[in-house]
């Protein structure tokens, strides 16, 4: 009997938490397509606000996509080799390098942005282009890529595979291209998805680094929250959800399949630290 009660209580807490997470999302989505939110849904549904957002903010969406893709490319180029080095040479030096590479996670985005502005703000062309925002995003997302890839690469199975390839005559670069990278695919894809998601939603650094010509989606969102009517802000948020939710769902699906996948892919799910 006590057992029943316990079950019901836990279920209630769980459902309440779920409602807490879902209700505001649903409300904001609804508000984005409601003619007048103050009056309520009875005022009718409309795509007018979405159209308005598109007219005002389409450029921010495009720029966010561009930066996010560039960020994935950059973290792949920088992070995958670095993770391989860390996996191949575990030791005190590697530990220190890993600490430095993951340190940007512990330091608030505001501090990172200030540091970047103080150091690089004088380079006018760099400061005013979207490359400056990109650098901030790479700085913040690189640890996630390194961790996701490092987790797969440091599995003992991976060392065995590489030794197997070496025993068959494969040299350093051949092993890397034919065995290491293809079998780290799970971690690489997971890392890339994570980087994409985090870059699209990054605000802390971006708010400090952006210029009027390099506004990203979250910067535009903050802008609309401050200055637009609730329906437009909601419609804009709705567009953001449409962009980010598929990425989050894909990430969830990945961590599920990874849990049931083969010997090399036995890595724990990677949890992002949102930039809030």
């Amino acid at each position, binding site marked *: 009997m006590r057992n029943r009660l316990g079950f019901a209580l836990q279920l209630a807490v769980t459902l309440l938490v779920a409602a807490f997470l879902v209700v505001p999302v649903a409300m904001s989505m609804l508000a984005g397509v409601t003619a007048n939110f103050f009056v309520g849904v009875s005022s009718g549904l409309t795509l007018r606000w979405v159209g308005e957002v598109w007219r005002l903010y389409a450029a921010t969406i495009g720029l966010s996509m561009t930066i996010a893709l560039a960020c994935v490319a950059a973290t792949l180029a920088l992070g995958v080799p670095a993770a391989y080095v860390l996996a191949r040479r575990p030791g005190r030096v590697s530990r220190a390098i890993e600490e430095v590479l993951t340190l*940007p996670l512990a330091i608030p985005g*505001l501090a990172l942005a200030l540091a970047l502005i*103080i150091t690089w703000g004088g380079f006018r062309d760099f400061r005013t282009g979207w490359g400056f925002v990109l650098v901030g995003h790479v700085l913040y997302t690189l640890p996630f890529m390194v961790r996701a890839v490092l987790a797969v690469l440091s599995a003992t199975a991976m060392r065995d595979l590489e030794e197997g390839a070496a025993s068959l005559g494969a040299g350093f*670069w051949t092993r890397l291209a034919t065995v290491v990278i293809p079998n780290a695919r799970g971690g690489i894809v997971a890392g890339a998805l994570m980087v994409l998601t985090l870059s699209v939603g990054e605000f802390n650094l971006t708010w400090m680094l952006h210029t009027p010509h390099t506004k990203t989606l979250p910067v535009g969102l903050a802008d609309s929250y401050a200055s637009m009517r609730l329906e437009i802000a909601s419609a804009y948020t709705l567009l953001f959800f449409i962009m980010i939710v598929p990425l989050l769902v894909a990430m969830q699906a990945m961590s599920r399949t990874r849990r049931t996948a083969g010997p090399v892919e036995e890595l724990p799910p990677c949890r992002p630290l949102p930039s809030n």
Partner: protein
Amino acid sequence: MSNRDLPRLVLLAVPAGAFALAFFLVPLARLAAAAAGGPKGLAAYASVVTEPRHFESMMATLALAVGVTAATLVLATVAGLFLSRHAFPGRGALVAVLTLPLAFPGVVVGFLVIMLGGRQGVIGGLTEALGAGRLVFAYSLAGLFVGYLYFSIPRVILTVMASAEKLDPALEEAARSLGASRARVLKDVVLPGLAPGLTAAGAICFATAMGAFGTAFALAANIEVLPMTIYTEFTLNANIAAAGALSLVLGAVTWAALYAARSLAGPPVAAAA
């Protein structure tokens, strides 16, 4: 296979190393120097203690972060344990719902808090319908608390579920075979088993709450939390030294929290996260 590859490995590490040097280590050093180069010199670093406004801001931020961490751990442990222990129709959907907001940015979370507790919020509507007057809490410390809770819960639930799956069921069965009640099993076996995961998740939760900026910004509230203070010092007062010193102190606090958790929980957060 080991030593002969060293030159190639160094080559592979160069890009990331150069990036970290140019855009992280050097800027951080410049920031530290700029903070100490203001009119107050090195004393700028002590301003969290010496300057009343900064001190209050630091205390408010710490209290908020500790409160959010504690509330999140309780709620997420209940929900996470429940979800990992019971199979029922709709469980998958519930898990998806509870973990989906994982990477919502802080600004958006701020907006969602306005949806809940703003002037046209759903909770205000409810309290008004109940005849208790319109409850508006979004633009205060309470709004910030709710927002931080919002983005902390999904991550801790995930950690709890992952840790619970790794618990050896035989341990619980052994405890029960020795006569332990359900409550005893929870206290003696389950919670200690979850402790490392909870410690790590709690530390991340605390660190995120300390440094969060977007939510406070979106709520546009008159809440002096440290990141807002830093932002104000930098943009309105153009006081780079103060902003720099405060952000480095904030960084040191969050890093220390993460480091402490890592030492406590045993395996590095990197391996658990």
